[in-house]
C-alpha cells in the first residue's frame, strides 16, 4: 500500500518528438538484448561465412590459377563480409514475421507512437547486429592475408553499417508482406541466395555471359560488396594485373562506377526501401 501512495498515476502518456525517440531507442535496444541472449544465433550465423571462406574458398583456390602470392580466399573475403552482413540483416528483419506469429508485433503496433519509429528502430537494430557480426568476420582478415590497417578497418565498418542498414530495410519491407514463417524459406531462396551469388562475392563478374552480367548489375548487393572489395584491395600488395582481374569494379557501359556513386546508390536504395517499409506498416486497417 505504501508504494501505491508513493507512486502517482501516470495518466496521459507521452506524445511528441521525445516519445518517438524513446520508442525508436527501445526497439533498437530490444534487438540488441535478443541478439546478446541468443548465443547460438551468433555462432550459427558466423559458421556459414567461415565455411564458405575456408572450405569453399580453399577448395576453389586449388582449381583457380592465380599468382603465387595471391590466394583466392583473399578475393572472397570482401564477399564473405557482405554475406555475413546480408544473412544477419535479413534474419533480423525477418524476425518481424516471428513477432507477428507470436503476437509481439501487436504490442508494438498498438502503441501510441508513429509507425516510422518502430520501423526505423528495427532497421537500426538489425543494422547494428549485422555490423557486429561483420566486424567479427573482419577480425579474421589476417588469416586470408589482409593487413589490419586501422583506416581500412574503419572504412570497412562504415561500409558495412550502410550495407546492413539497407539490407535490413529491404528485409523489413519484405517482412511487411509475409504473414507466415514458412514463407521465410521461399524468400531466402528467391532473394537472398541469388543476391549473394550475383554480387561477385564468390567469383569475379567480369567474364560472365551477358545475361548473368546484367543480373549482377541489377543486384543491389553488388554495389555494396564492390566498395568493400575496392577498399580491401587498396591495402594488398599485388600486381596490377591481378588486381584488375579480381577487383574489376562495376561498369555501366564504359563507365566504371567510382566508390562514391556505388555508396550513394546503396544509400538511396536504403532510403527508398525504408520509406516503402514505413508506408506498409503505416497503412490503416
Amino acid at each position: 500500500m505504501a508504494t501505491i501512495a508513493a507512486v502517482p498515476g501516470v495518466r496521459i502518456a507521452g506524445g511528441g518528438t521525445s516519445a518517438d525517440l524513446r520508442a525508436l531507442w527501445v526497439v533498437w535496444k530490444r534487438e540488441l538484448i535478443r541478439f546478446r541472449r541468443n548465443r547460438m544465433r551468433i555462432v550459427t550465423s558466423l559458421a556459414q561465412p567461415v565455411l564458405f571462406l575456408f572450405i569453399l574458398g580453399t577448395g576453389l583456390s586449388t582449381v583457380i590459377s592465380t599468382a603465387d602470392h595471391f590466394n583466392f580466399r583473399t578475393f572472397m573475403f570482401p564477399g564473405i563480409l557482405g554475406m555475413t552482413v546480408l544473412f544477419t540483416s535479413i534474419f533480423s528483419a525477418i524476425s518481424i514475421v516471428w513477432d507477428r506469429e507470436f503476437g509481439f508485433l501487436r504490442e508494438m503496433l498498438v502503441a501510441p507512437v508513429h509507425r516510422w519509429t518502430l520501423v526505423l528502430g528495427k532497421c537500426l537494430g538489425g543494422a547494428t547486429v549485422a555490423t557486429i557480426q561483420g566486424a567479427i568476420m573482419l577480425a579474421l582478415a589476417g588469416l586470408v592475408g589482409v593487413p589490419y590497417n586501422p583506416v581500412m578497418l574503419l572504412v570497412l565498418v562504415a561500409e558495412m553499417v550502410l550495407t546492413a542498414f539497407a539490407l535490413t530495410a529491404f528485409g523489413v519491407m519484405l517482412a511487411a508482406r509475409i504473414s507466415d514463417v514458412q514463407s521465410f524459406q521461399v524468400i531466402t531462396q528467391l532473394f537472398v541466395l541469388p543476391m549473394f551469388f550475383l554480387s561477385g562475392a564468390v567469383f569475379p563478374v567480369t567474364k560472365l555471359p551477358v545475361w548473368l552480367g546484367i543480373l549482377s548489375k541489377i543486384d543491389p548487393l553488388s554495389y555494396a560488396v564492390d566498395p568493400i572489395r575496392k577498399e580491401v584491395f587498396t591495402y594488398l600488395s599485388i600486381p596490377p594485373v591481378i588486381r584488375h582481374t579480381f577487383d574489376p569494379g562495376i561498369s555501366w557501359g564504359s563507365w566504371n562506377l567510382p566508390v562514391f556513386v556505388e555508396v550513394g546508390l546503396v544509400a538511396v536504395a536504403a532510403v527508398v526501401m525504408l520509406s516503402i517499409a514505413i508506408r506498409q506498416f503505416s497503412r490503416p486497417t
Partner: protein
Amino acid sequence: MARRPRLLWQACPVAQTELRSTGALAGTAEPAIVAKDLKKSYKEIEAVRGVSFEVANGEIFGFLGPNGAGKSTTISMLCTLVNPTAGSARVAGYDAVVDQAKVRQRIGLVFQDTTLDDYLTATENLRFHAELYGVPRELVAGRLQQVLEMVDLWDRRDGLVQTYSGGMKRRLEIARGLLHAPSVLFLDEPTVGLDPQTRSNIWKYITELRRREQITIFLTTHYMDEAEYCDRIAIMDNGVLVAIDTPEALKGSIGEDRVELHTDNDQQAIERLMEHFQIKAQVSEGAVTFHVPGGEQFVPRLFAELGVAILSVRVARPTLDDVFMTYTGRTIRDAEASGSERMRSNPWMRARGRR
C-alpha cells in the same frame, strides 16, 4: 455472489442508469466509452451490425456472447485497431477514428492471445512498454514494481517470459496493460484457457484494480459465470446487442426457474408440455428445457400429468445462461457449436497479417 454487483453499483452510481447521455461522476465530462451504431463488415460477413452503448467512468462492463458474435471486432474498433464501416465511437473522450493516437495513449489493452516477447524477462517486457507509451522516466521503476506486485510476479521479474506458465503470462500482460495507468482497460477474453483457480485470481486482480486505479474496465468473455463480476453486461449475438443491463436485472427480468428434463421420448415430452401445460420447451444440450415460475412446485404436477417417462429432473434459479437463452433462443454453448464455423476472421490476429 448475488450481492456482489449491488455493492459495486453503490460505489459507482452511474452504472445503474444505462444509456445516459452524460457521465455524472464528478469531474468527468463524458462517459468512458460511447459507441453509436457501430458497424463492421468484412467482404461478405457483417461482423458487427450496428451496436450502440455507453460505459460510465469506473464501470466494469462486460461483453458477453459466443465466439463469432462480433465481440472481438467491437473491441477492436473501440481500441482503434479496426476502423468501423459505419457509426462512431468515443473512448476516453476522443474519437476512435479521428484521434487514434490520443485514444491509444489513454487505453490499456490485454489481448486474447499472448503478445509478450518470450526472449525477454518480465522487467524487460514492461520497460519496453513503458518506453513505447512514454511513461515519465522517473516514474517507471515505481510503477513497474507496483504492477508486478499487484499480479504477484515481483519475485519472478528477472525470469525469461518463456519460463512462465500460462497464468503467469496472462498476469504479466494485465500488469503491462496497466503500466502506463490507462483510464480505460480493455481485456479481450482475459481468462480464456486458464484453470479455474487462475481465473478466479485474475478476477480478484481486476476488481482490485478498479478499486485502486479507478479505471474503467471493458472486457469480453464467453464464460457466463465471469459476467457476474461485471457491473453491467451487454449480450451480443450475431453482431447485434440483444440486451444491456446489470446481471441482477437481467436475471430478474426472466423471473422464472429453468427446468431440465431427461425423458424416454423428448419429442413427445415437448408436445405434451405444449398441449397440456401450454409451455414451450426445447431440447438444449441434450435436455428438454423450459422456464416456469415456481419450478419446484411444478415438478410434482409434471410427474403426475406429463405421460412420458421422466428419467431425471433438474430445477435451477435463473442464471445468465438463461438470460442468454431467453434473448437468443439457445444456450451459449449451442451458439458456439454453430457459430464457430461462421467467423474465423478475428481482427486481432489480422491486425497486421496481410499477404
